[in-house]
């Protein structure tokens, strides 16, 4: 096996449907720190470099739950995914071109890692991320769906994406009488809000 083949065959490029945190850096140090921060079993940490980040993002099915980056550029292929899907984006240092407006920028690694931990431990009205994938509702029901996972983890923030990307989540939450629904917030981002708030308005 040659070097090129070996790089292509890396386990980090294997397609998988587990919740994934894609960490794009020049040397992997931040990926190691994220690995130590995320609770065990909550997400697979995929350690990427600029040149393989888009390929690895494509192996995160249906898309990466979170992308963490530092001191690297974002290739057009990766930027396309980040602008089209509700992906949590945490960036250390100056954000490169191509990131959507809902990307969060941090100046200190400790603050970024704390945000990663909070996203993993998010609890929105009893909805929590289940280990590996899906969201557990207050009654123990497991709801599958990457968009809902992103909305729960981003709360109270949201995503600068079209409303249609969240219709299936709104229907699923209504079907389970979860008491929450995605709505556009004052920053024009789609975020979770209590359904009762909407009834009162």
């Amino acid at each position, binding site marked *: *096996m040659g070097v090129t083949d*070996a790089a292509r*065959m*890396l*386990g*980090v490029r*294997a397609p*998988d*449907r*587990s919740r994934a945190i894609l960490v794009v850096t020049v*040397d*992997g*140090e931040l*990926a*190691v720190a994220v*690995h130590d921060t995320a609770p*065990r*079993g909550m997400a*697979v*940490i*995929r*350690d990427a470099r600029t040149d393989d980040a888009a390929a690895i993002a494509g192996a995160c099915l249906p898309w990466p739950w979170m992308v963490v980056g530092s001191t690297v550029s974002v290739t057009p292929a990766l930027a396309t995914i980040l602008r089209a899907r509700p992906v949590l984006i945490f960036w250390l240092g100056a954000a490169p071109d191509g990131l959507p407006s809902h990307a969060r920028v941090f100046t200190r690694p400790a603050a970024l890692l704390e945000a990663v931990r909070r996203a993993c431990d998010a609890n929105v009205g009893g909805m929590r991320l*289940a*280990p*590996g*994938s*899906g969201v557990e509702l207050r009654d123990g029901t*497991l709801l*599958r769906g990457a968009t809902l996972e992103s909305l729960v983890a981003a709360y109270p923030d949201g995503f600068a994406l079209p409303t249609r990307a969240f219709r299936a989540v709104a229907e699923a939450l209504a079907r389970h009488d979860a008491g929450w629904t995605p709505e556009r917030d004052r920053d024009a981002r789609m975020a979770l809000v209590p359904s009762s708030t909407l009834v009162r308005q």
Partner: protein
Amino acid sequence: MRANPEVLILEDDAETLEELQGHFTRKRFHPLGARSAARALSLLENNRYSSRPVLAIIDWDLGKAPDRSASSGDVLSRLARELRECPVIVYSQNIDAFNVRSQIQRSHPSALLHDKRDGDASLLERIDRMLDRTVGDLRIHDGTVVVHLPTLDQHHHREAIRLVVHHPDVVTFHSDTATKAVRRFGEWLQSHSSAVRLVSHGNRKYRLSVTVSEGAAPENDA
């Protein structure tokens, strides 16, 4: 008939390999031992339809390997691609170095790390904690059966053992045959009114969840 679950061991030091193999044999597992990455890849290739190890123990540094045509990273990548349901422990003298950890994580994002400087006894203790698991009212016995402790009834399928070893993590199963076995295990848990239930995450992904009743002990983690 009970098929003893296999454990893959890649260790370049002959004495340590023998010690690890002996440990697993005493625990009724079937060790697949290799001193080189090439040999480990060959074992995986030759047994790909009959053998899917329930655990892999990988020495990252293979300086004493008789054959250097492949690396431990190649074995980890193969495990990550083709045996995702197999938990992997990687140990190294340099496990604290971020570049080593990064290389390991790029080869196998879910690998568990162990510091070789803590000695072989520490590794064996950790392995025992994984394999002699008690999860809720279930316990693995002799590496070959899951015992429901209140009734002492036994479930023999290796996929059940895999779920208990992995708890609380999600396991991705590789075939319809495996997922059928998992669902039968879920029915067995229900029929025994076990405190443990099977949770489906779709796409052949399952995990065990323990219902903690009032006054009961919390879940036991490895």
